[in-house]
């Protein structure tokens, strides 16, 4: 087995640097304003090559989730969760839900991005927003 590692294309590197600063930034298209995720050389919407880096607001909604019961990496010991979050800016980002988890279905739960160290690198995570209607009292 081995540790997990990020895909680090030349477009990914600035994103990971922003995660290191605890504020996730994504590319926005200079022509149509669409956010790109994963980072990319071109806008799939309008085919513009131009972009600038823009911090996301840091809020989103859980679309789906899974619980890993089998170990695939040294640095991820089951059981652990992965959530698919649609951020307010549009893209779907996969992350880990930390802290309290919803009772019953997690789908529709509102989350906010936070940051934590993992295996020697800073990563984004998400936690339930305080007012989220389906947030549980505690984990």
């Amino acid at each position, binding site marked *: *087995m*081995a*540790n*997990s*590692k*990020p*895909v680090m294309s030349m477009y990914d590197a600035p994103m990971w640097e922003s995660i290191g600063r605890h504020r996730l930034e994504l590319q926005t298209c200079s022509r149509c304003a669409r956010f790109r*995720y*994963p980072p990319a050389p071109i806008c*799939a919407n309008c085919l513009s090559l131009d972009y600038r880096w823009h911090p996301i607001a840091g809020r989103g909604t859980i*679309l*789906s*989730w*899974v*619980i*890993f*019961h*089998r170990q*695939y*990496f040294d*640095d*991820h010991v089951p059981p*652990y969760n*992965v959530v*698919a979050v649609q951020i307010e800016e549009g*893209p*779907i*980002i*996969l*992350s*880990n839900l930390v802290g309290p988890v919803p009772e019953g*279905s997690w*789908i529709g739960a509102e989350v906010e991005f936070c940051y934590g160290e*993992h295996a020697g*690198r800073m*990563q984004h995570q998400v936690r339930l927003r305080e007012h989220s209607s389906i947030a549980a009292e505690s984990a």
Partner: protein
Amino acid sequence: MRPTSANDQSGAEMRDRNLAKVAAVVGVGHTDWTADHGRVRAGEKPHDSYGYAAIAFTRALEDAGLHRDQVDGLIVGPTTAYERVGELLGIDARWGGQADAMLAVIQACMAIKAGLAEVVALVYGNDQRSASARYGGADPVGGGAFLSYVYHAPWGFTSQGALYAMMFRRYMAVTGITEADLGQVAVAQRLAASRNPNAIMQKRITLDEYLSSAYVCEPLHLFDYCLINDGGVALIIAESSRARRIRLDPVYIHGVGRSDLNHGATSLEPRLFDFYRPAQAQSAEQVFNMAGVGPADMDVLQVYDSFSCHIPLALEGYGYCKIGDAGRFMREDGISLDKGLPINTSGGHLSESYMQGWNHQIESVRQLRRECGERQVANCRYVHYSSDVAGKAVSIIYGR
């Protein structure tokens, strides 16, 4: 060349584009999955990918009653190099290439239609189990072809099973399908495997056993995952008039279809928003129109089942039931050899062997040739094969 008017031209092109009954399968072969499975478990390595491919090829050739020199096209699977297989089998093809099972069948039809080959051998060998191939973790199989297989690894998200688990969890919430409904797939396919001497897992399971089995990536259980194993499969596909001279019961390819969803693939948009339905609907329209038949005409449905949840997705996407109704369809109408629409009659990837769609092709042919013994579907006339791997929906209709 005879000049043609614009109308003639477009009419000719319309006819030219149709692959219906252009070609037929005249030979099939496979390696000894159960015996090799036992040997690999005992720590032996019976063959490598090329050895399995070679054995399967000689058996398909023998089944067709052909000599190697009569083969003028060669398509190899993704796990072996084209030139080396051609060298090993002594085939200097006039048309060749490398493709997965589904696209190999379609490409053979295209090459035959274009007059680039007349008898095409499709050859697959894979030593994935004895070579300890990994479908999750660092450097998983397929990671170079699909960014979604590796991109989310920092958060521990890996393996194709997890991608389908994420998709199925949301599909459960949207449609109301339950884990017990999904369990119908593993139970039905194991029933089929119990009647298939080639299947590696022939012991029947109950729904309770399914539900009490361990999760791998929740909500998917161990029994929802395919059976990674060594082996090989080969098919010989010939131009239809030639096929009729080769054997009395060629199995025709009546139609093919394909539609891909690439937009947003790495961030799982086609999985989580669409459940691959738009691709399946387009692929279905193409394949059924080409074949001139519909879902109600199909006697068997074969579905690429790296995971059990491919089956409910295919039932809805290809029009075998209404959107959102697959859970009820599987539970009440049935998907087994004993009840309803028989699906994956060999046991499929879950119980026969994970031959990456290749075993489904030869099972389709054998059902249509009525060679399947205890698991034979009565009066089998049409078999529909479908796959939706990573949102690339491919469909083939085989028939007599």
